[in-house]
């Protein structure tokens, strides 16, 4: 008796061990590609450039980090960077959460258009937006006309621009999940006597928390590493770490200070990410996700209509107005003249007609999206396994790091790290989509993880009991549920590549400029035609982004349900 019992026990243990081993093997298999990708295209270049700055005669000079931190101006930059990121994040959540709710839960005409439109600012290069935003807060801008208020070169301009840029992050990350939460759960709580607020607080809020945390983290990261906005709208008096790193690397060529600042930024970003991973893990619950078409309703009652009106008004003033200024300036005084000029090859400034930048941008973006989606999905699936160990959790944070490293560091790193065959990619076109995918992967992961993790494990187990292989269980259970998140992620990655400027400008070839690079070139030259063409190209960039995003919105709404 006893014997058999232990035997059974042994056998069960062996089976468990085998299953564990299998699980580990699968996970490792899934992680190989993303890990290799990050090692070669991220860790290696960054390490190379930091080593240039911090190693003298083969000895690491880590003491320099302490020295730098002791300097008051470094501390000041660090403080300002943190402060403005915190305030920007709070403001963005405050302004964008109602928008996320409205776009997720209300069904109204023009909803898809609105959802696509709010995402456009996020993907526009700062070089374009800076000038547009001046029309809102600068001299002769809307606020100036209305109340004689001028905010340019104040910190308010920076904060508002950050809201402008990151509105979409909150709307898409939070709204994506909000639209799929089963409203019946909240209704059940109401039936059991909970007040409307209590029901929301105890049912919906905990379910949303991971997505809100993810969105807040994203916004914090973007604003913490803000570069163009701070440079253009803040004037030269405000400086963030990112701006300082750029100056030390590209202007002053003090690689050692730049390396120290990079390490500081790395450490800060790492801390944020670790914190975030911890909060998300503590909040994770399996959610019942339903089809979005079930959850969206027409607004009812004055309160809901007012909320909708408020959101639309906010979007109009904060997001559309700056964009409208660009459009207006692209037509002003010339009708379609500037657009026509874009198709002419002037033989000098551009080797090709500026309009060809549209084609280049789209091609790069398609390739970058494909790379980002493959890498990001593999990583997300590996990360959602319940038995994920410490190592995997570290990997989660690692995937986000590219968002916290300055483009100039990556760009310079590419130059000195990827210069040996078989990986001499410095002059290859693939470098551009690779760099863009690096920034795209975190979006894919962040969009997919909350949804993947919310898939009820019991469904998978049930499938396994019925004899499905892990792959088949994943395909039949997880995939249908995450397909929508996948599309959102792809849309984001696509849009991010379209507007990516920082790294692209370092590696794009003159014969294949991308849209943002072409805009920057036009803005860099005096003369009315150049300025007008820059505005026209910016308008085209906006339209291309909006169309790409709209197509994705369309894709998700199939007649049989929204996906």
């Amino acid at each position, binding site marked *: 008796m006893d014997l058999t019992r232990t035997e059974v026990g042994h056998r069960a243990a062996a089976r468990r061990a085998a299953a564990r081993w299998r699980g580990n093997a699968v996970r490792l298999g899934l992680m190989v590609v993303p890990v290799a990708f990050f090692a070669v295209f991220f860790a290696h270049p960054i390490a190379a450039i930091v080593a240039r700055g911090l190693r003298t005669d083969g000895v690491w000079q880590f003491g320099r980090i302490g020295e730098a931190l002791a300097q008051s101006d470094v501390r000041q930059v660090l403080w300002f960077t943190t402060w403005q990121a915190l305030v920007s994040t709070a403001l963005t959540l405050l302004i964008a959460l109602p928008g996320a709710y409205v776009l997720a839960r209300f069904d109204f005409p023009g909803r898809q258009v609105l959802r696509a439109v709010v995402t456009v600012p996020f993907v526009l290069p700062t070089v374009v937006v800076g000038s547009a935003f001046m029309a809102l807060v600068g001299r002769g801008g809307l606020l100036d006309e209305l109340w004689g208020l001028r905010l340019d070169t104040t910190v308010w301009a920076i904060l508002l621009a950050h809201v402008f840029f990151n509105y979409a992050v909150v709307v898409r990350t939070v709204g994506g999940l909000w639209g799929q939460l089963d409203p019946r759960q909240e209704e059940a709580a109401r039936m059991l006597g909970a007040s409307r607020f209590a029901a929301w607080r105890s049912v919906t809020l905990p379910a949303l928390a991971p997505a809100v945390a993810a969105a807040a983290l994203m916004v914090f990261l973007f604003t913490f590493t803000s570069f163009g906005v701070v440079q253009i709208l803040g004037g030269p008096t405000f400086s963030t770490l990112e701006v300082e790193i750029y100056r030390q690397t590209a202007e002053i060529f003090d690689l050692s200070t730049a390396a120290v600042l990079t390490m500081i930024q790395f450490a800060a970003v790492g801390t944020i990410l670790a914190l975030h991973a911890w909060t998300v893990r503590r909040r994770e619950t399996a959610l019942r996700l339903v089809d979005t078409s079930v959850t969206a309703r027409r607004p009812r009652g004055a309160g809901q209509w007012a909320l909708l009106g408020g959101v639309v008004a906010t979007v109009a003033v904060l997001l559309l107005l700056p964009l409208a200024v660009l459009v207006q300036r692209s037509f002003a005084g010339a009708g379609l003249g500037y657009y026509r000029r874009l198709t002419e090859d002037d033989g000098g400034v551009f080797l090709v007609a500026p309009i060809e930048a549209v084609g280049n941008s789209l091609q790069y973006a398609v390739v970058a999206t494909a790379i980002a989606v493959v890498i990001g999905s593999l990583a997300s699936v590996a990360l959602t396994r319940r038995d994920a160990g410490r190592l995997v959790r570290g990997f989660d944070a690692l995937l986000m790091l590219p968002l916290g490293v300055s483009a100039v560091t990556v760009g310079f790193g590419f130059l000195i790290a990827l210069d040996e065959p078989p990986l001499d990619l410095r002059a290859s076109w693939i470098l551009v989509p690779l760099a863009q995918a690096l920034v795209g992967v975190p979006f894919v992961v962040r969009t997919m993880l909350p949804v993947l993790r919310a898939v009820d494990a019991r469904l998978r187990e049930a499938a396994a009991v019925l004899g499905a292989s892990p792959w088949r269980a994943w395909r039949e259970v997880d995939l*249908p549920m995450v397909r929508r998140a996948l599309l959102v992620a792809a849309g984001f990655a696509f849009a991010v590549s379209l507007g990516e400027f920082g790294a692209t400008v370092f590696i794009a*070839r003159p014969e294949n400029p991308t849209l943002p690079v072409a805009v920057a070139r036009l803005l860099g030259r005096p003369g009315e035609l150049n300025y007008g063409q820059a505005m026209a190209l910016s308008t085209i960039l906006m339209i291309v982004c909006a169309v790409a995003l709209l197509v994705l919105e369309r894709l998700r709404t199939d007649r049989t349900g929204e996906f």
Partner: protein
Amino acid sequence: MSTTEQGTRKAAGKVTRQVTVLAVGLGLITLSACGSSGGDDAGPGSTSGGPKTVTLVSHNSWAASEDVIAAFEKQSGYQVKVLEDGDTGSAVNKAILTKDNPQGDVFFGVDNTLLSRALDNGLFQPYEVKDADRILPEVRADGGKHRVTPVDTGDICVNYDKAWFSERKLTPPETLDDLVEPEYKNLLVTENASTSSPGLGFLLGTAARYGDEGWQDYWKKLKANGVKVVDGWEQAYNEEFSGSAGGRKAKADRPLVVSYASSPPAEVIYADPRPKTAPTGVAEGTCFRQVEYAGLLSNAKNPEGGKALLDFLVSKEFQEDMPLNMFVHPVREDAQVPEEFARFGPRAKDPQTMDPAKIAEHRDQWVKSWTSLVLK
């Protein structure tokens, strides 16, 4: 529940197909729009180029007429590839970073404010171009070692908005001294000397004019007179300066800006219809001369091609083609400047200049002092 799931699954199949169709569609559209990054742009391995390719590394203001380049290719037998590497500062820095395994054969675009950094880091190897004796003596540098060859000059000067001054019957300023006069209070916008090349040039101009000690006093006066500092040229010129096309649209209110002597001709050439006269003018006494150099990179993989390309950069054809593409002046004494360029953007008669060695010695310290003096 189950019906939804079935529906979902059906939809899923459809969506996957749609995505594929979309991706293929986009791919096709873009492929037809431009084939250059599709197939014929060789991937890895093309960096070294064949012996028949010569690669020019430059900053993003590089521009040349296609027919002039084609003529060079035909005559020399080399194919020219151009690699633009960001603005002047970062292009120079990148070239230094990669000097052991350079991205090309020739670097063009290091100016006198950065020259010593390039030379001290051993970026270039000596080569004396064929027409070296045709180059204006005042722009030659490097004490006859021939590691760099001057290619063009440009003047950084204060530009003024003609209409603004004539409406107010006010004479535009002409010299640096004028800029601190009370009638020009709150009119000037300039660029951050630590992040912008014209901003740095303007600072160096004041240092050349008032000396190591005097320039700080001058800037104190300038600050008291309401000078506005923004980060980059684009912003200063397009957003703040009332005389530019962008500034007119943005209702800009500063009629004085630190820009280039070649900005007024650009305002004419890039306007449709072209005005008879430039809407902006140059304050002749505020200019600082920038010289741009090119050189053969130390570890160039195709040094022979690089030498041919350097000869070409100072050839009469290229020198005469340059002004309307890059808005700079030739360095060849016998090069003819296009008529509209000469008419609206004459060379400054007596610009401030400074020896590259002196710039190297003081630049960082000056920029630091300037930052705490003007921006804090």
